[in-house]
């Protein structure tokens, strides 16, 4: 005996076949998803100044905006637009169109592979959040998933040869300050007076150390993430330089421009990049999200058992 689904089970797109509009939109989001990454690679190709050899530097400043207040001193007035901000914006665009791509044409039956992936992601993150924070934090999965995806895809940008935004302390420091504001807000939920009193425990003499350990939370979170990704980038640059020197030593006798091609740079750095970019980047993103949830759930006042 087949049970007919009730009217509330079917959504309106279940009845209609996959239309041309649906297919067009899916392909549009897919193309728009890959466009920021292509833009980033083109920007890197055309806007990097030619340099001799390989140098270890920070983010390259593309141009500097000035705030329209002529009275401010120069360091505060200038807003440098660096590689890390441009690449961060590209990652944001990529994630935006990725979400649109995954959720195009949702239906209850006959799900597409994209919808299965989207549901898998949502279920995993909700299980993760409720496993770490307990109940009563139902608003948190979107925030945690956003931090996780942003962090992971920013570190994975290094696979495309771009400058990863998480190699810049400013980007990671910004996220850590955001998390610190959230933790402080949850600590103040029990009242501002008890927040201040919390610094005096267990002994009032320890108050400066308590304040210091309060600030050490965002600093350590930012530094852990930034240090791991940046050291991966520095080691990759050094390995490229070493391989270029090695290939000049071994293949330098080839005539003309053939002696200048660094043959050893093909393939060997990719093995290192599996650890530094894939494993380390994703693990650090996961740990950043996990520590966010841990600190917030520790900061919230204990719920009184009813």
């Amino acid at each position, binding site marked *: 005996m087949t049970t007919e689904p009730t009217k509330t089970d079917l959504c309106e797109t279940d009845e209609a076949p996959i239309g041309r509009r649906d297919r067009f939109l899916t392909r549009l989001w897919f193309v728009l998803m890959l466009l920021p990454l292509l833009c980033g690679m083109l920007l890197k190709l055309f806007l990097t100044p030619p340099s001799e050899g390989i140098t*270890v*530097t920070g983010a390259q400043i593309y141009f500097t905006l000035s705030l329209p207040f002529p009275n401010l001193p120069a360091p505060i007035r200038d807003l440098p637009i660096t590689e890390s901000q441009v690449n961060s914006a590209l990652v944001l665009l990529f994630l935006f169109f990725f979400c649109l791509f995954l959720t195009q044409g949702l239906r209850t039956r006959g799900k597409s592979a994209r919808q299965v992936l989207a549901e898998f992601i949502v279920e995993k993150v909700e299980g993760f959040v409720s496993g770490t924070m307990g109940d009563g934090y139902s608003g948190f999965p979107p925030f945690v998933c956003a931090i996780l995806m942003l962090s992971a895809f920013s570190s994975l940008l290094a696979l495309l040869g771009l400058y990863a935004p998480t190699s810049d302390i400013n980007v990671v420091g910004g996220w850590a300050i955001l998390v610190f504001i959230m933790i402080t807000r949850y600590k103040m939920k029990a009242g501002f007076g008890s927040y201040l009193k919390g610094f005096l425990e267990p002994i009032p003499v320890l108050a400066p150390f308590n304040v210091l350990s309060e600030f050490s939370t965002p600093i*350590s979170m930012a*530094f*852990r993430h*930034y*240090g*791991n990704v*940046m*050291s991966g980038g*520095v080691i990759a640059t050094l390995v490229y330089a070493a391989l270029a020197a090695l290939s000049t030593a071994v293949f330098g006798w080839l005539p003309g421009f053939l002696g200048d091609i660094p043959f050893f740079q093909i393939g060997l750095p990719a093995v290192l990049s599996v650890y530094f970019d894939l494993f380390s980047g994703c*693990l*650090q993103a*996961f*740990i950043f999200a*996990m*520590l966010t949830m841990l600190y917030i759930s520790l900061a919230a006042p204990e719920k009184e058992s009813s």
Partner: protein
Amino acid sequence: MELAIALIFAACALGAGIAMIAGIGPAIGEGYAVGKSCEIIGRQPECKGSVTTTMLMGCAVAETTGLYALVIAILLIFVAPNLMGNKLVSLISDNKEMLKELAQASSTTAP
């Protein structure tokens, strides 16, 4: 002047080397943690997945102090010489006349 530049570069290199002594801490701690987790897996093979995940997360958190030292060492090797060099170049170009007088004075008074 060359002595000053050489001293600064030498101090940067020495400082970077001394800073990385802190790499011994996470190595010992994480090795101990991995040993403990291997012991537990040997005792209860069915909890291998969650023990491995927890161990990896704990190792990544314990890595932090080693990373503080690494960032300081990288800054000393790659950033400090450029900064010092730029400062010295600007100092020299600002005080060219004074340095010339000093050089003449030292050459006439040297025995």
